[in-house]
């Protein structure tokens, strides 16, 4: 029954156009074919580097001897050919007409699609100060950005990283590994504490500082200027202090790229495209997935999740929804971050209380709310987080004493839960 229904729906869809060939868009294209869709698939991305992973850009791609994007390909040319996916790389979508399904491309062509998936992600934010958005600063969102940073690395002994988020911290760790002098500036009182449990943030900060980062918190940047004639760049802080460096890298967040959504008149929420669990936007022809989407959780709340796994899941879910197939449950939010030699993972959300467990493999922090685990993060101990994800899903009640007790076998909690 379900199968015949989905077939009839699929028969009406001759052409799916996917805008954005990153984690969400690539997953969608792949899953459409895997699920047997035989119509036309167009995968469009204005990035001339095409379809690649962003996570390595702040890690392996900064550290590797040579810049080889082929190792980070999401869908390579052969796969696109095998899967019969028509790619338009280096070509942007300039305008989107929801009513007719027309996509106007930057090279003048027009595509007509029955269904459109917006997987347009986001752009790196700039600093709203003089010099904060021009050639004096580097952001890190695309392969071109990473290449540009690499080209300057050799002549940059002293680098300022502005921003205490994950990408800022990863850049700091990578530059330290390369033997650079790193000045890490954050507008907040403590880097990373907004995304990770407090003790995990503290552990990472201490690690980077002991590796040589000079950290400045609660910093207000007044302006960024060309440091002629000495060369390099000069940061002017709010209190008048000046810091001279050879390169400035910004990791101050991202803004969802909603330009097409706005021109198509789609409803937005929390600055991104409002979607339901089937990734449907306010227009029946258009779906959205990934960093550009704001997922409706019910009761007036939305969640925005700017991490790889969520983008991939939403791309997959969109493809299934387009084909009329059931969409799997929304996974517990999860991300990883590699900072130098430290592998960090976090699942779920922050709670009211943090419980630490000092496992031999690596530190684990559990975020608790009302006696239940709602989040967990670890350092060099990913399986502790994977186990915690199962406990979060099971909404398990656990005593903090047991959590702290490293003699206690955490796996037994899963078995108990299954026994219920």
């Amino acid at each position, binding site marked *: 029954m379900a199968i015949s229904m989905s077939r009839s729906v699929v028969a009406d869809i001759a052409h799916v156009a996917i805008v954005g060939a990153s984690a969400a868009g690539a*997953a969608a294209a*792949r*899953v459409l074919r*895997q699920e047997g869709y035989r119509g036309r698939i167009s995968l469009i991305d204005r990035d001339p580097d095409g379809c690649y992973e962003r996570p390595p850009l702040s890690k392996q791609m900064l550290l590797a001897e040579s810049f080889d994007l082929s190792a980070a390909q999401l869908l390579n040319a052969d796969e696109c050919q095998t899967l019969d996916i028509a790619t338009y790389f280096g070509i942007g979508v300039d305008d989107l007409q929801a009513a007719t399904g027309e996509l106007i491309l930057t090279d003048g062509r027009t595509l007509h699609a029955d269904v459109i998936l917006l997987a347009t992600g986001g752009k790196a934010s700039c600093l709203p100060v003089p010099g904060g958005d021009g050639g004096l600063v580097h952001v890190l969102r695309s392969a071109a950005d990473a290449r540009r940073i690499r080209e300057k690395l050799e002549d940059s002994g002293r680098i300022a990283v502005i921003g205490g988020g994950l990408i800022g911290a990863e850049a700091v760790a990578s530059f330290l590994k390369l033997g650079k002098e790193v000045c890490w500036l954050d507008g907040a009182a403590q880097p990373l504490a907004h995304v990770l449990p407090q003790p995990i943030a503290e552990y990472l900060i201490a690690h980077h500082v002991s590796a040589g980062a000079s950290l400045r918190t609660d910093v207000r940047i007044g302006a960024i200027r060309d440091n002629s004639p000495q060369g390099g760049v000069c940061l002017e802080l709010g209190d008048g202090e000046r810091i001279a460096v050879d390169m400035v890298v910004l990791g101050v967040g991202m803004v969802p790229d909603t330009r097409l959504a706005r021109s198509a008149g789609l409803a937005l929420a929390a600055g991104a495209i409002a979607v339901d669990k089937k990734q449907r936007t306010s227009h029946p022809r258009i779906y959205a997935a990934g960093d550009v989407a704001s997922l409706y959780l019910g009761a007036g709340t939305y969640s925005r999740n700017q991490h*790889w*796994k969520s983008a*991939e899941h939403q791309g*997959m879910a969109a493809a299934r929804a387009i084909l009329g197939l059931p969409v799997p449950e929304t996974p517990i939010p*999860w991300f990883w971050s590699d900072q130098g030699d430290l592998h960090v993972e976090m699942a779920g959300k922050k709670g009211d209380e943090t419980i630490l467990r000092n496992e031999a493999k690596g530190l684990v922090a559990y975020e608790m709310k009302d006696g239940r685990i709602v989040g967990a993060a670890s350092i060099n101990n*990913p*399986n502790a987080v*994977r*186990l915690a994800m*199962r406990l979060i899903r099971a909404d398990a009640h656990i005593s903090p004493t047991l959590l702290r007790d490293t003699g206690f076998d955490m*796996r037994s909690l*899963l*078995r108990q839960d299954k026994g219920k």
Partner: protein
Amino acid sequence: MRMKVCALDDLDIGGAIKLDVQPPVAVIRGESGDVFAIDDTCTHADASLSEGFVEGDAVECPLHMAFFCLKSGQPSCPPATVPVKTHRVELIDGDIYVEISRG
């Protein structure tokens, strides 16, 4: 090629041992207590399944969370789509042996 891995008692439930053959093989003890051997490298990208989290008789890839059945090697959740190769495991006198099949 047959290889002796270790004593069954030395491999905990949910535990894994990576065999340094080419390509590497992961010997993993599922929650049922049974021991399985699969190719260690995830079919999606470069990650070692011996480092993955074991649930039931399946393993979750440490990198992007594809989930592989230890018995059949089939992935049950994206992003992996290609099964990992499985190898035959034998228990002889309390020791684990793996028959590594290639080709």
